[in-house]
């Protein structure tokens, strides 16, 4: 847009006369009120959006493994992922429309203000959404037609393109919501929207951290929902072949979810740091203010995720010949995880009134205060990550017999790496009690680096040690106790609820501002509710989402049933052939 001084003056004069920042207007919504209506619409839309953005990422990876690894079962898996995507897509759009209409009718002042700044990106959003939809249709419905050779590569390219459109759509929507959190410093309450520079508002301080965090979280979420879907299909399977397929699918979903979850805290750290950099008061409100208890709830939920994810793996070892030799270790891993959760969920600096301070005998609880500090928490969570990685490693090695002559030495080196990493984590954890806070914060970096280096080193060694490994026997896919599948449901519910909780935290730290320190919320719902109230709303959102997902998947399965009853021999490998190819496929 060409800007001339005269044009700018005219714009300024017009904008000043049109400024709508100070007095937003509101519509009304019958019980439970406008805020909850918008909250539910936004949250359910976000659940679906996360699913339809996360699933294409691993669908396209699974298809690539199928193409380049020449393994048709991955291709089938990718197609099944995409089918789930297809049926969820319209629900995403419907809830997006509900959210938009809700904003227009219930929060017209805010909507008008945002639209005046972001109108160009809204049109681009619609265009990209259009492209994304049609790319998805081509990707799914062209699966069988473009099945071989160069056509298959072109089909895979469509999958990549689908991810590009989806990610771009998410980035645009993220700019709108992050602007509400972190508007540029030059935007003041009396700045007319037309005077706000578009790119400055678009690429605001928390935009990229949210983009990164959401991309990873979407993969976690998609993996968990796919895992739950597979668990349901497993439990209701009528044939061994179906059961074997969905057992394997559940395993892949869980591996994706837990694997990406391990990376997610680093993205969260990046986001938190940017929030502090943008506005320290907002950061303190988030971590130590009225939101501080949310992190205790988060620790509890992540503890459940670690426990359920590991439990699923440990139970799964029962179907792997050769895994018996690792089973005695699981109880010790369980001890580490439980202790880790207890430490991580210990409250530290909470808002306390004078009576509570007196009751504690000081600013910290005499016993819990020692465990509640970051030194202890960082140590706990890093040891939990190491333990979960060990579970994956044992699972991966369970049915393999090494043949390389230096295997024993290699395993001892791997053990030494584990011990060294744990020792570094513990050392800095204890040392952290004897240094100042600013030094202590730096220790968390050493702890994380020790864990990441250990994961990288051990995996590299493991690939080399397992070269040419013999099998103790094929994994008995499908021979999984039903209780393991309920762990997958718990994972999905917990991920979904956790996403709702973190959404509440992110949005709630704006407190009584629609746009932080620019546009006040002057409605009757301006106060931010306590966690108990938020928990009820989040639970309702999860119930609505899972109910709809269940219905959508059931509808999708209606069309598929005849195929499953009469499987095509070339597209559905027999149990025997799957077993033959499965041993090293984990």
């Amino acid at each position, binding site marked *: 847009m060409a800007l001339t001084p005269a044009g700018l003056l005219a714009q300024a004069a017009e904008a000043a006369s049109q400024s709508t920042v100070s007095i937003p207007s509101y519509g009304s919504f019958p019980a439970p009120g406008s805020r909850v209506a918008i909250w539910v619409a936004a949250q359910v839309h976000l659940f679906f959006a996360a699913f339809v953005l996360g699933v294409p990422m691993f669908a396209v990876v699974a298809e690539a493994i199928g193409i380049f690894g020449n393994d048709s079962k991955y291709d089938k898996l990718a197609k099944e992922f995409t089918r789930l995507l297809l049926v969820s897509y319209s629900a995403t759009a419907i809830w997006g429309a509900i959210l938009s209409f809700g904003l227009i009718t219930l929060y017209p002042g805010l909507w008008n203000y945002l639209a005046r700044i972001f109108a160009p990106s809204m049109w681009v959003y619609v265009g990209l959404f259009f492209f994304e939809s049609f790319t998805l249709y081509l990707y799914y419905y062209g699966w069988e037609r473009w099945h071989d050779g160069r056509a298959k590569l072109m089909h895979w390219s469509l999958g990549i393109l689908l991810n590009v459109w989806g990610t771009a759509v998410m980035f645009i929507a993220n700019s709108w919501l992050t602007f509400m959190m972190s508007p540029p410093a030059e935007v003041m309450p009396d700045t007319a929207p037309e005077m706000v*520079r578009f790119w400055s508002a678009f690429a605001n301080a928390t935009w990229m951290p949210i983009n990164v965090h959401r991309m990873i979280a979407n993969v976690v979420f998609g993996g968990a929902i796919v895992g739950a879907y597979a668990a349901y299909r497993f439990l209701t399977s009528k044939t061994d072949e179906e059961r074997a397929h969905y057992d394997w699918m559940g395993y892949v979903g869980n591996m994706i979810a837990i694997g990406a979850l391990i990376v997610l805290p680093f993205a969260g750290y990046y986001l938190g740091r940017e929030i502090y950099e943008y506005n320290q008061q907002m950061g*303190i409100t988030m971590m130590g203010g*009225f939101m501080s208890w949310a992190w205790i709830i988060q620790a509890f939920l992540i503890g459940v995720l670690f426990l359920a994810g590991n439990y699923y793996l440990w139970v799964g070892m029962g179907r792997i010949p050769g895994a018996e030799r690792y089973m005695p270790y699981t109880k010790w891993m369980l001890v580490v995880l439980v202790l880790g959760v207890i430490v991580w969920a210990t409250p530290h600096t909470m808002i306390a009134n004078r009576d509570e301070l007196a009751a504690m005998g000081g*600013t910290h609880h005499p016993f819990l205060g020692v465990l509640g500090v970051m030194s202890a928490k960082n140590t706990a969570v890093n040891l939990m990550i190491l333990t979960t990685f060990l579970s994956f490693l044992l699972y991966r090695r369970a049915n393999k017999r090494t043949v390389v002559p230096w295997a024993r030495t290699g395993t001892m080196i791997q053990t030494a790496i584990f011990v060294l990493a744990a020792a570094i984590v513990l050392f800095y954890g204890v040392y952290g009690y004897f240094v100042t806070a600013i030094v202590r914060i730096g220790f968390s970096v050493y702890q994380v680096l020790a864990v990441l280096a250990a994961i990288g080193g051990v995996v590299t060694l493991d690939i080399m040690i397992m070269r040419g490994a013999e099998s103790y026997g094929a994994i008995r896919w499908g021979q999984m106790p039903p209780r393991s599948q*309920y762990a997958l449901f718990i994972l999905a519910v917990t991920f979904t609820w956790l996403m709702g909780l973190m959404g509440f935290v992110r949005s709630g730290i704006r407190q009584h501002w629609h746009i932080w320190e620019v546009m006040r919320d002057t409605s009757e719902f301006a106060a931010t509710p306590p966690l108990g109230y938020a928990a009820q709303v989040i639970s309702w959102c999860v119930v609505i989402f899972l109910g709809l997902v269940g219905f959508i998947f059931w509808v999708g399965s209606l069309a598929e049933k005849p195929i499953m009853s009469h499987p095509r021999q070339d597209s559905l490998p027999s149990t025997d052939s799957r077993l033959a190819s499965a041993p090293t496929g984990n």
Partner: protein
Amino acid sequence: MWQTNLKILLVVLGTLGLYTWVASAIPQVASEVPEELTFSDDVTADDLVMAGEQLFTGAGTCTACHGTGTRAPNLLTDHAGEGTIGQRCGTRVSGLDCKAYLQTSLAEPAAFVVEGFAEMVFQARAFSDAQIWSLVAFMQSQGGEVTVTSDDMERADDAAATSAPAEPSGGSPVAASQTTDARVLLQENLCLGCHAIDGAGPPLGPNFDDIGGARTADQIRRGILDPNVDAAPGFDAMLGMMPATFGQSLSAIQLEAIVTFLAARK
């Protein structure tokens, strides 16, 4: 089949119920909207203290830092053997009584930083004068004598109305007039509504990022005090836009702080 579905339903609802119960069982803290306060001439110390306490423990979110003992000095309990805030506020800075010390600390968080702590994170501009004075009264009440009266608020109102410079007694407007931090001043005086800084902002006036290279300190000072005499190169069309009131609204120290800051940006 229905048994499986029932089990799944129970697991899902049970998990949701557990999380909802845990979140409801912990202490429930909401973030209230700071109430607009208006006090009559005969407002009592108790009224002020009560309003201040509500703000301190509620919407002001003061307890997020004051009370933990790690982020900020304890105010309601002893700190460093000096007693509660009401007991120690009068002796913190030589020549400043308790009321002036507390009010200045709120208006200018960088003015008197307690040793061992960072500058207070407090957005004074988000609070009204009445709210700030009620906070001062509440803190005085913690072991000291409440000396805040309606006169303090009237003085603040008068000062705000005339945009007068700060008074040493502490009865000045809160957010805009006392600080000598150039960046804060640029923001409070809405300079950044027209001038870009740090690569961001509208291009209605000369960019602050390199203004020191193009203009001398004298030229910058003259440009602030009498902005409509000479236009900066390339901004002839903007002549007349910038208010010519900063000579009255800024103190000499504040003006020099801005001039020094801008002249150094080359």
